[in-house]
């Protein structure tokens, strides 16, 4: 049984305008997304800006209602915990609290996601104070243990975030996420703000911790080479829909959906002799999610689009060991 099952998730943000902030439209940020996540697995979610990948992560952890007024969420986020099943999407803030310790988040920006007025030990200890009844002494011991796990020293515990580099701050964020022994960690662009030489350190650390604690990751990123390295399966998103999902190696070696193929072909290769004619050119820009094209949202830029693509959103169908939302690929 999967640990997490997302079924037909839809998220709409209202667009307001005018003096009275009347609703004048809506952004369908996530438009019918379904996937599963197994224990110990990493699901990579890739796509370009505005495709809804971050919103999916935030919907799973159920923080959208606190972040954005008037957001409409439908669909199910089923979390299979040790005592049964719960639909996280239906829970209120207070109902959600017992599950928060099981699902934690690592953020993109290691600068703004740590409170500058708290010491490192206070930052890592905070989830323990909220979610556990541990004594102060037990909490201190746990903080020291966590800092050791992420490669920071005990002397660094009493320093403030500004005294650390970007990579070290991301380690602090990881220690905080680990504090409550979570099952699932949602990592939203965890290495994209880091220098190349530091990225590899943080990715290796995340893999080591996954092995040690049997963590499941939802790894959201736009860097396709990083995602390939860490993911078992990937989901490719375009304008609020998953267009292809399946084992990472399969999709990377033979992408079937025309968008996955174009996206992968555009990634620059660190090889001066790489063939440049591999590139599939997409015309134009991603349409605004406020005016999403009817039917298949990719049809306005798709090299193999046909007239009927405008009629209905193509469903995900199983082809060559992965699921693809395009009826025209073999």
């Amino acid at each position, binding site marked *: 049984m999967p640990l997490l099952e997302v079924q037909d998730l839809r998220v709409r943000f209202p667009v307001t305008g005018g003096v009275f902030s009347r609703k004048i439209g809506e952004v369908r940020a996530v438009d019918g997304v379904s996937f599963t996540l197994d224990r110990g697995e990493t699901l990579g979610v890739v796509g*370009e800006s505005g495709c809804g990948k971050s919103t999916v992560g935030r919907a799973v952890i159920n923080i959208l209602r606190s972040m954005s007024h008037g957001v409409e969420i439908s669909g199910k986020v089923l979390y299979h915990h040790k005592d049964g099943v719960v639909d996280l999407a239906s829970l209120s803030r207070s109902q959600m609290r017992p599950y928060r310790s099981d699902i934690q988040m690592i953020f993109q920006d290691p600068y703004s996601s740590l409170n500058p007025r708290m010491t490192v030990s206070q930052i890592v200890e905070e989830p323990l104070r909220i979610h556990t009844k541990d004594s102060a002494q037990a909490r201190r011991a746990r903080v020291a243990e966590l800092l050791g796990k992420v490669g920071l020293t005990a002397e660094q515990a009493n320093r403030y975030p500004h005294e650390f580099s970007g990579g070290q701050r991301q380690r602090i964020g990881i220690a905080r996420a680990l504090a409550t022994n979570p099952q699932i960690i949602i990592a939203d662009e965890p290495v994209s703000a880091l220098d190349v*030489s*530091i990225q590899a*350190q943080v990715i290796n650390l995340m893999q080591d911790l996954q092995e040690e604690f049997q963590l499941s990751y939802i790894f959201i990123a736009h860097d396709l*080479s990083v995602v390939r390295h860490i993911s078992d399966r990937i989901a490719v998103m375009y304008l609020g829909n998953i267009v292809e999902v399946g084992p990472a190696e399969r999709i*990377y070696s033979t992408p079937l959906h025309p968008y996955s193929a174009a996206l992968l072909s555009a990634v620059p290769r*660190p*090889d001066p002799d790489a063939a*440049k004619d591999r*590139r599939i050119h997409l015309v134009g820009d991603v349409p605004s999610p406020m005016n999403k094209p009817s039917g298949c949202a990719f049809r306005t830029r798709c090299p193999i689009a046909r007239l009927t693509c405008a009629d209905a959103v193509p469903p995900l169908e199983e082809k060559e060991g992965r699921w693809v939302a395009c009826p025209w690929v073999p």
Partner: protein
Amino acid sequence: MSKTQTPLLQVRNLQTHFKTEAGWAKAVDGVSFDIFQGEVLGMVGESGSGKSVTALSVLRLIPDPPGRIVGGSVIYKGQDLLKLSWEDIRKVRGNEISMIFQEPMTSLNPVFTIGSQIMEVILQHNDVSKAEAFDRSVKMLELVGIPAAATRMNDYPHQYSGGMRQRVMIAIALACDPSLLIADEPTTALDVTIQAQILELMLKLKDESTDAAILLITHNLAVVAETCHRVMVMYGGKIQEIAPVRELFKNPMHPYTKGLLASLPTVEGKKLDRLQTIPGNVPSILDLPVGCKFVTRCPERLEKCWTYEPDLIEVSPGHWVRCVLVEK
């Protein structure tokens, strides 16, 4: 590109320092390089390596205070840009040498139309009427692939997408047909499909002009591999290695370059179980080692590296390395 011709731009022993509460930070500490006509020269390095400061110093765009170009020369077409009067350097900027920045969102003025911002640079550097400047601006927008260019001249920056704004920046940068384009992380803020479009556009426009050259600053080694003829690798305010692009990727000599190339995950080929890493953190430019700048993280360091910093040594034609391991 032939080595016998005189370089378009010659940077010699450039030193740019910044005053901080903790003392002078040597952001650029003796950088020398040439750019030849028709060449794309890449400059890679991590945050704080001095790559952006080098580029800004060439056009004397360093805010003073706190920054100051304390030494060196930048020879462009026989004159030292660092010695020009304020008025003369303005005639160079945007006209002879232009620059594209990372953030297309913040480099355009939100309260002026796209058209007026392209016309501004044309009117500044050329003796033309407004009508002529308008026509040339429309042509530039068409050149960079903006559809319905004439009507979109009247749009404001917020009506353009990120990729289109970067195209506008390129249109502005190329409006006066410069000989050198300095592009500082031009595609870092863009999505990967748009990145490919913008890089191809820059190269295509360069090829259409006979003598133009590009200095491309980036942290992305894959972008360098696909666009540049030569590459220099910066670390701690100094050039650590400089080589033709194939040579650098096939035969990296500096331990830092080797570490960077080994730590890259890829989208094709064999998937590794673990990424190789460079240990430690990028040092602060206020706290650089006395000897080799990379010594604190170098897996191949020798005892003397802590106190002794080698010069750049030519190991094969055009391939220069700053490391004791290549010293005879």
